[in-house]
């Protein structure tokens, strides 16, 4: 745990009324790593992500992102940090009145208003291509896309600014396995190209094995453990055991082993 960590969370508490979601969450995300976050449904993974990006004011604790304290942050100063990150929401949150190309252009226009219009068009086009979407999707609207296409369009928008830090809330859920693999490959490729740091909530065991450097487990209102998947599977916690050693977990582990030896 060093000061150069991209995200530093200490003693984070979150509650809604009497329901306590987080009680003393500590988590650090290192520069350049892909960190996976797992946990049962409703354990507060999305709430944790919303706290990190400043959409949810925690009851207590401290969150530093790229060196900026996020708790009690002045919204005006938010731009300093937010131009360095891209966020993919669980429901994609595409702007429904704009088509996909325009959606991708929104952050570009916001931060770089002087960009040439043709270049803007081209950048939007290759961002859409990066996420494996067909060309004709650019002129479509959110309501005209399938769930998986929305995910990828949301990812294209999150990547618009070439962020240093990428937040992904279940990027591969609802995708077919081929597209899910393509997203995994894209994230790996971007990390290799740009030294990107990725904070990724996922239930996709293949993603956990194939692309995550470390995995954080959220249970009992805390981060129980942060480690590589191989080490996590050896831990003696009932939920972690069920998660990684169930039939799906074992299948993912086997396919990962097969890939490693095959490669």
């Amino acid at each position: 745990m060093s000061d150069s960590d991209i995200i530093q969370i200490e003693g984070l508490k979150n509650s809604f009324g009497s329901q306590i979601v987080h009680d003393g969450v500590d988590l650090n995300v290192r520069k350049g790593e892909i960190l996976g976050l797992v946990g049962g449904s409703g354990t507060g993974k999305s709430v944790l992500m919303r706290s990190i990006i400043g959409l949810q004011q925690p009851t207590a604790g401290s969150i530093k992102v790229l060196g900026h304290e996020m708790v009690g942050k002045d919204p005006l100063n938010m731009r300093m940090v937010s131009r360095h990150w891209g966020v993919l929401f669980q429901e994609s949150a595409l702007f429904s009145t704009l088509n996909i190309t325009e959606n991708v252009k929104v952050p570009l226009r916001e931060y770089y208003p002087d960009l040439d219009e043709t270049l803007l068009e081209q950048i939007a086009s290759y961002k859409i291509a990066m996420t494996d979407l067909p060309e004709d999707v650019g002129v479509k609207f959110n309501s005209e896309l399938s769930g998986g296409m929305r995910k990828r369009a949301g990812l294209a928008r999150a990547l618009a600014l070439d962020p240093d830090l990428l937040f992904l809330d279940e990027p591969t859920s609802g995708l077919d396995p081929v597209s899910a693999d393509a997203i995994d490959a894209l994230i790996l490729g971007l990390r290799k190209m740009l030294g990107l740091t990725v904070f990724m909530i996922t239930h996709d065991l293949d993603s956990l094995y194939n692309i995550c450097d470390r995995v954080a487990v959220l249970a009992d209102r805390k981060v129980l453990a942060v480690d590589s998947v191989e080490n996590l599977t050896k831990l003696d916690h009932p939920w972690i055991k069920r998660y990684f050693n169930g039939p799906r977990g074992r299948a993912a582990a086997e396919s990962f082993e097969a890939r490693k030896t095959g490669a």
Partner: protein
Amino acid sequence: MTGSDDFSFDIEGDQLALQGVLTLAHLDSLSNKLNTLPSIKVIDLSNLHRMDTAGAWVVHKLAQENNAEVKGADAGMAHILERISQYDRPLPPEPKALSPLIYVLTGVGKNAVHVWYTALGLINFFGALLISIWHTICHPSRLRTTAIICQMESVGVNALAIVGLMSVLVGVVIAQQGAVQLRQFGAEIYSINLVGRISFRELGVLMTAIMVAGRSGSAFAAQIGSMNLAEEIDAMRIIGVSPMESLVLPRFIASILMMPLLGFYATIAAIVGGGLLCWSVLDIPPTTFITRLREVIPYTDVAVGLIKAPIFGALIAVAGCFQGTQVKGNAEQLGYCTTKAVVHSIFLVIVLDAFFAVFFSEIGWV
């Protein structure tokens, strides 16, 4: 992120040398300059420290357009450049701009078609509503009493304060204006006739209908419209719950039941307002006011108001719910349809009111 965070470039002959950091942040100013470059054969990246995908895209495009060779890229940059070239695909053609005349004509045509289909849709909707009313009559147990009562509260009870206040003020204004004019003939006492009859026949119900259209017609459209956007209506249909019976019918019935009550209440409030003004300005005591009201208002005036009210209520509910079902696609549509619900229902209420005015005078209820 070593070295300076600046970007610069040099041109020597047909060689373009890029230096520093080439990222999105440097492209605002750069892209115009690069567009005016003379043709180049070599792009030298050896002094470039860092580049992101946007920078790589610009380099890729420059190399492609000039048929230039890229050299001096380190392993990382070569990798980005190679990847980015895979994402290069032709931009979709710009839609052709229409001539203004054609544009206006297509606009008019599209609107005409749209109005036609909206009218058909409305008739269709009304038919479906009648069918579901018939079904409910055949199976009274299917009636959603809780939903109806809930809607009655939001359409009626919650509107009491605003409708009351508005009507009192309207009553005051009418009595005051009437008094000013009638005083010229020494006939101030006729202000009472004016306030009493116009409140019962016209204003009580009309103003209430306008208020209900604004409060509840818009709410109906917005509620049903946002459910439509979130596929909730589809989900209901699939589960076998009829949206007509569960969403539209309760609002329809609640509006029909509450409009006469609200309208009558508004009428009384307007008369109270007028009475207060007569008392304070014209020195007509309340007892005289009430006695005179009873002499000059025929029962038909009360009937005129009470007959119109449920019809206006039905109209507002149908217009609001229908517009809600028309919401497709996005949030902007939701706002558009909500506005239309209010505009249409107020317009139709006023048209119908004019029709009723003629009708009742023809049958002798003057």
